């Protein structure tokens, strides 16, 4: 059963010069117990998507679409009080920098309690006990004592655990993790991602994992959507994506990353020339065409539609023949 269904979501900014589209025609569904990764570089629209799913977009950002269905209810048609009651209880979010998402003048325990009493009511004593239990569940050592600590007294890793405890307080159906480990060190990053994975399996939560780091996706996601300039260019299972990426952008991303692309020491890394286009300067046709080695006149004039291919969806005019065009792509590490 799919817990979250997004249908043709578009997000744009209203500016004096007209609409600037930031996310175009995004559709996906998310099943219970599944982790779907949304991968892309900065400015591709992935964080806007997260805010849109929570109904947190503010003007000048505007969203349109055929619906965001959370457990069958269309978030686009709900009013703000209803949305507020769903946020934190049915759909929750973990942010990149927990320090800015936590209130500095309340203890972490009080903040977890607040989520519980806000959505489920009940007495303070019961809420306190639940909060401590949650802190233990997210493996915060010495939870009873840490309950009374203020956020700045905790390390980055512990703060992120507090955020996870708050997000999971009401057992949400869908958890959105927006770059949850980008601000953390590598050894802590592994701990946090493992924790999210364990909790997901235990509770059957659906996780939307937003990241810029393709390297994390292989181990921590079931399916992957690669986003470029506001559009999903490739959606595959994680295993398929790494074994044989079909969109030139995905291929470029993997080959550009030392350690993933199989480049030896100081062997020339595959570059994606140029930079991501700005919202006001979107190329005609395929947005990736100015940076793509395979682009031809068709790419420069017509936006490719998403087609089912190789067990996934790819939006490229040439993905079917990509192996003939680039037989020499190196074996992709990671399995």
């Amino acid at each position, binding site marked *: 059963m799919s817990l979250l269904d997004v249908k043709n979501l578009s997000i744009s900014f209203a500016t004096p010069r007209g609409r600037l589209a930031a996310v175009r025609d995004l559709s996906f569904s998310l099943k219970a117990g599944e982790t779907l990764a949304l991968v892309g*570089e*900065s400015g591709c629209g992935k964080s806007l998507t997260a805010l849109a799913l929570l109904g947190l977009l503010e003007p000048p950002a505007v969203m349109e679409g055929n619906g965001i269905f959370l457990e069958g209810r269309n978030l686009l048609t709900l009013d703000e009080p209803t949305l507020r009651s769903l946020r934190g209880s049915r759909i929750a979010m973990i942010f990149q920098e927990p320090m800015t998402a936590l209130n500095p003048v309340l203890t972490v325990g009080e903040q977890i309690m607040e989520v519980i009493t806000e959505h489920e009511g009940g007495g303070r004593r019961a809420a306190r006990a639940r909060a401590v239990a949650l802190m233990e569940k997210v493996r915060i*050592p010495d939870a009873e004592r840490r309950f009374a600590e203020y956020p700045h007294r905790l*390390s*980055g*890793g*512990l703060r992120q655990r507090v955020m996870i405890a708050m997000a999971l307080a009401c057992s949400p159906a869908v958890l959105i993790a927006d770059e949850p480990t980008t601000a953390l*060190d*590598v*050894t*802590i*990053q*592994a*701990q946090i991602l*493992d924790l999210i994975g364990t909790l997901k399996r235990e509770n059957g939560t659906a996780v939307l994992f937003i990241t*810029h*780091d*393709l*390297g*994390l*996706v*292989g*181990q921590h996601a079931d399916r992957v959507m690669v986003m470029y300039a506001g559009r999903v260019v490739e959606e595959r299972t994680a295993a398929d994506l790494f074994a044989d990426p079909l969109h030139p952008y995905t291929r*470029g*991303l993997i*080959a*550009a*990353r*030392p*350690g*993933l692309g199989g*480049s030896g*020491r*100081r062997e*020339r*890394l*595959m*570059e*994606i*020339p140029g*930079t*991501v286009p700005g919202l006001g300067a979107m190329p005609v046709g395929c947005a990736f065409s100015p940076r793509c080695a395979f682009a031809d006149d068709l790419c420069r004039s017509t936006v490719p539609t998403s087609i089912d291919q190789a067990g996934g969806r790819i939006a490229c005019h040439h993905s079917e023949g990509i192996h003939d065009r680039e037989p020499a792509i190196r074996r992709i*590490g*990671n399995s």
Partner: protein
Amino acid sequence: MTANPPSAELATPDPLLSVRDLSVRFDTAEGPVHAVDGVSFDLKAGEILGLVGESGCGKSTLARAILRLVEPRAGSISLAGSDITHLSRRQLRGVRRQVQMVFQDPYSSLAPRWTVAELLTEPLVIHGVGDRAERRRHVGDLLDKVGLPADAAQRYPHEFSGGQRQRLGIARALALDPRLVVLDEPVSALDVSVQAQILNLLVELQRQSDIAFLFISHDLSVVEYLSDRVAVMYLGQIVEIADRDSLWRHPSHPYTRALLQAIPGNPPPSADDALKIEGDLPSPIAPPPGCRFHTRCPYAEQRCRIDNPALRTVAPGHQAACHLMRLS
């Protein structure tokens, strides 16, 4: 130019950079922080030394101490055989031509109201190199070297993308033809597709001359890709230093092994070797007694809690600081 043949290396006994027992201490409201604590290493001409560690391990402070941007408390820094630890600021200015730095955020290290030409000629003006025409030619050469178009000279830093700005930062560091460039997380702020451009550029620059890099990063994949040798830092100390291949194949310190396993897509060779370290980095204000890693080390014994292990040679060119490592 090609890389130095081995005989040339033997002919120059002094390493380009030699750091001995370097310590840096900061006084904070909560007490002194030993950001760098007794660090020693050498860097040869034309070599790329990768320096890895998590945030707060002191790697950036070490870099700044080498450039004398922060004052070391103890120890010495020698550049090409001459001690620069106690040179005055005025005396240092000559030395600075030889050691340059590239910062993580190129935007904050480039004066926003200056044109690229002004930014790139500033080092030459400071050191009185060349006349106006020569400097202008030099700007053109530098831009070409880092892969920017010549018309970039008349533009302002804010008109460039992140990757192009980092190219500018590199061009400025190269303006005086230094022998050593310290790069502090030069690609961390960049998107993956742009990272590759900068890494390729660095490789190319290093191949063209015998410039040495001290490359600081928290990203082990990048360090593996670029470095000849790698030093791993933990809480102000180097816990392991080795040739890249030796370190990747036979990591001797438990912390190094945990770091390597934490690289996404780099699973442990066998279940026995799986090493997940628990807990957080202890506060550098009150580092644990004994081995600084013992609070997170699954193998820690009694002596690890008392005695701080020194670096020992595990294999030729490979040193690690652990009481329990198997000497091969």
